[in-house]
């Protein structure tokens, strides 16, 4: 299986665990070398029973993990950059973001996607107060903060205070529109194209599009900061 963890191969493990951080700079959650938990036992038992009952196979589970791993904010960034450079595509995106994403070749399954556009006087912010709905089939799994009680509770009542914590201070002249994904739609923010990017290619523009700016907790990078921003 491509996702094998080598429980007895400690040297191998340590090669990957430099300073306890993953390549994306996040701490690894302890897994193979921590004591087995009740919930891990439940996951193993459920998975084995599902395989034995013929509901799924080990290969199908591994394939699903690979598919989810292949989805990332880069997919959304490509969609945004296309919308910035192709007015007809942008119009299709705002009409039906799911179909526009499929048109670009992204396998987003049955996702119903709505794109909401940031303009000079409007800023959009996405949250799911009821669970953790997120355009996962386009952007991959949500960041941990998106699923926290703090974000889900506060984004609908004090979005400006929340945005300040993300380093985004919007002027009072900007209207904030918060979108609570309460049912069957998922949302993605179409950020405004940064000034001074007239000469950039679509691929260069995509580099400016961060995950957070597609949730609304950030703005795209500007070309000046693009080279150094994490």
């Amino acid at each position, binding site marked *: 299986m491509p*996702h094998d*963890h*080598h*429980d*007895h191969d400690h040297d191998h493990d340590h090669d990957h665990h430099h300073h306890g951080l*993953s390549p*994306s700079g*996040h*701490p*690894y*959650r302890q*897994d*193979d*070398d*921590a*004591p*087995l*938990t009740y*919930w*891990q*036992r*439940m*996951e*193993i*038992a*459920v*998975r*084995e*029973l*599902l395989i034995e*009952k013929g*509901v*799924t196979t080990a290969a*199908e*589970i591994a394939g*699903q*993990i690979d598919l*989810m*791993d292949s989805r990332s904010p880069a997919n959304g960034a490509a969609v945004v950059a296309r919308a910035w450079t192709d007015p007809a595509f942008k119009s299709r995106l705002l009409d039906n973001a799911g179909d526009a994403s499929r048109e670009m070749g992204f396998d987003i399954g049955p996702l119903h996607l709505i794109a909401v556009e940031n303009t000079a006087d409007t800023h959009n912010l996405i*949250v799911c*107060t*009821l*669970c*953790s709905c997120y355009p996962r089939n386009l952007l991959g*799994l949500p960041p*941990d*903060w998106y*699923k*926290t*009680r*703090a974000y*889900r*509770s*506060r984004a*609908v*009542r004090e979005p400006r205070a*929340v945005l300040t*914590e*993300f380093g985004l201070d919007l002027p009072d002249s900007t209207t904030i529109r918060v979108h*609570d994904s309460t049912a069957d739609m998922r949302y993605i923010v179409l950020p405004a194209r940064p000034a001074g990017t007239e000469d950039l290619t679509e691929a260069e523009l995509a580099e400016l599009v961060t995950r957070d700016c597609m949730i609304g907790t950030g703005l795209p990078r500007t070309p000046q900061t693009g080279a150094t921003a994490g």
Partner: protein
Amino acid sequence: MGGDAAGPVPMEGHDFALWEKRVDALMVLCSSKGHFTVDGLRRALEDMGEDAFEKHSYYERWIAAVNQNLVEGGVYTLEELATRMDEIAARGATYGEAARG
């Protein structure tokens, strides 16, 4: 919980462990095969009560909800689950040993 008072948004993140990715995969596969709906999972999550949110991690709650729906759907019985979880505990002290890969 929309609108409830809460502290600052915690910004730290983590990369998902293998067992968490497997929970996610089981959730997607079983729902796409019609063994439960996303609504059924949400209902099970809500029925755990507010304090489950404090006591258990995200994927701990999700495997509990997946299991609840599969038992309700008759895919396996609680006796089968409990017997298997007991066997797994005897395999080793870590996830790697108990999951056999």
